[in-house]
């Protein structure tokens, strides 16, 4: 029988494991990572590329860094998100250790740590992607919940 999407029930029942491997982090860090990000944090990340003034940008970076330190979810390599600057830029990387926001065009290659995040950032289902030093790549939904 065809469903409303013109797909039919699958014949085979074999299922590949669909989960990412578990990263070795402490239960506390894991729990902190799974807590939802608040609206202010999401808003700040989404507005990062609208500021050009270096001082405001610096202040925003500082504020973000403090919020993430308060969350105690482990050390971030950076954040990755779709870019709203428009063509030719498609996405950007936010490095919280410095104050760099680097924009990439579709043909640019991103640093190796961010390649998995880039693929995820293309999906409209995520507001942005967190990349941690331990290798964890955590997509954040627009409502602030973690999708990993």
């Amino acid at each position: 029988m065809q469903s409303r999407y013109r797909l039919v029930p699958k014949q085979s029942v074999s299922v590949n494991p669909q989960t990412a491997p578990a990263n070795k982090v402490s239960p506390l860090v894991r729990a902190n990572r799974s807590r939802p990000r608040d609206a202010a944090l999401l808003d700040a990340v989404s507005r990062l590329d609208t500021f050009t003034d270096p001082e405001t940008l610096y202040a925003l970076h500082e504020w973000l860094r403090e919020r993430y330190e308060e969350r105690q979810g482990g050390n971030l390599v950076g954040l990755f998100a779709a870019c709203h600057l428009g063509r030719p830029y498609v996405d950007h990387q936010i490095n919280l250790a410095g104050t760099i926001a680097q924009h990439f065009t579709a043909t640019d290659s991103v640093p190796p740590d961010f390649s998995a995040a880039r693929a995820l950032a293309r999906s409209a289902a995520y507001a942005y992607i967190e990349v941690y030093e331990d290798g964890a790549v955590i997509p954040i939904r627009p409502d602030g919940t973690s999708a990993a």
Partner: protein
Amino acid sequence: MSHVSVDYYKIGSMIDQATSHLSYQIEGVDSSVGVIRADLHSTNSELKELRKLFEEYVETAARVAARQQSETRVGNLKAELDRQFGQYKIVRLTSVGMLQAFDVGNVSNDSVQRVSEELMIQTPRYWLAPVIVALAAWSRDNTEIATKSIQEAYSRDANKTSLFFMLVTRRQGRTAASARWLRHYLGSVDPTAPGREFAVILEATGQNAFGPAAQLLLSQQMFRWCTMLRTDDGVVESQIKSWAGEIGRQREQVAEGTYPALEAIAPGWDWLKWQLEQASALPVAIDKYEAIARAEGSLPAALENLLDDILDQLVTEYDAEELPLRRDVLYHEAVIRTDGDVPRARKEADLLQQALDETSDVVTIQTMAAISPDLIGVSQQTQRIAIGVGQSDFVSAVGRYCAIYRQRAVERLMLNLDRTHTGYAVKFKFPGIELSTDVPEEQGIQHIRHLWESTLAGYIDAISFKNKWYTPRVLIGALICLIPMLVNPGFGLLALVAAAVIVYFMGENEKKKCSQAVAAVEAVRETAIGKSIDLYRDATAEYVDAMHVYRLLDSQESELIRLIATWPTANSQMA
């Protein structure tokens, strides 16, 4: 000086003779060697055959010996079991008989007391013996003996004794007492391996079989256990994996022929198809779990039977002391069954043993109750509760499941109209063109048309009539006419005229053929181009359609999460 004459001819013939004799002899030796080789070969194969037969014999002998040994051993082991634990069997039968007698009410208290006390004396260490003494004392209202016996049984096996009394008091409709026994039972359960019966107790409590107090008690205990076990990352991961697998099982598949043009010309179609199928699990999962959330819990008719089955199993199953002997019996029975094939028997026995030993922790039992209630025999009501308990794992699994296919989601497809994409492309030697779905359709069509135009122009050019066709024929005609020209110039001139006329007519004929061929190409020009453009148009339309369906399916993640987050029986595990 004497003259020595040498007859070379003779010597030569002698040497010839000797050579032919020698070669005859060599041939003889050769044939003898051949015979020996054949003999050796046959001896060798006979030896091999013999060796095979011998090995078969040895193997059969070993198997027969193993089988005989096992037969003897099974007999001995059973005798040993009977000698050591034969009394246990009688106690088991008596306990079942006693419960039945209580149900019917046709046996006097005296005989129950006598039998139970005898068994108590005859079977030291066995937990069931004081249990039946307690039952007998209970039936005649002797509190003192009942208490003493229960204490003794409890000290022998706390878990089984409390489970037994919990089930028996429930059978008698004494819910308060059975709830108390449930507390004892829970106290003796190891949450990492609660045993097979735990799922049914979970189910029965969920169905209020032991009263509301027991329900509360069990849910509190479950929460404590889960909190404790969930500090282990491995346990949590394994639940998330089970849930992700459950979502994966809801996948549908794209029916063959739904996207024919993409199947034909998009080499990356399989990826898009994969991602569509992955995302298709979401609405199916929503439908499935929405139905479960909405379902009115009904009392399963078989619950009473299930509880009685546990009681039955409890009193008839082997005791821990008997297990080593029972395991040996299992192995030797496997040897007999496999006709002495020891390695196979070992494997079979191990498998059986594994099935008997299989234990899951309470968190895993909860997840199993949520995902495959039929497998562990719980009802939809228990499933709903279990889904509520596993809420956070389910949500995590949805997030990961979607992240995995989104990470591999295709951004665009390349549409490849290759040299063989239509019959015309093959015929007119279309060079092939690859277009991304990012290219606007009109632009793509223009590219295809241009390429076709130039392909056809080249083809037409190749088949059109060219004046150079005349050159070789005129030369040949002139050469042929040269000979008569030399003989007789008048005749030669005539021949030249004839040759010119022939070449002219042949040329006209060829021109006609060529223009017919060109006309044939012109006749199919638009059809050929149109076919390719249609295929391209179909593919882009199908791509747009497939992406639309994908986005529709993919967007259901939030709906599925909302469904889980607002699960009717959820507790406070969600962060």
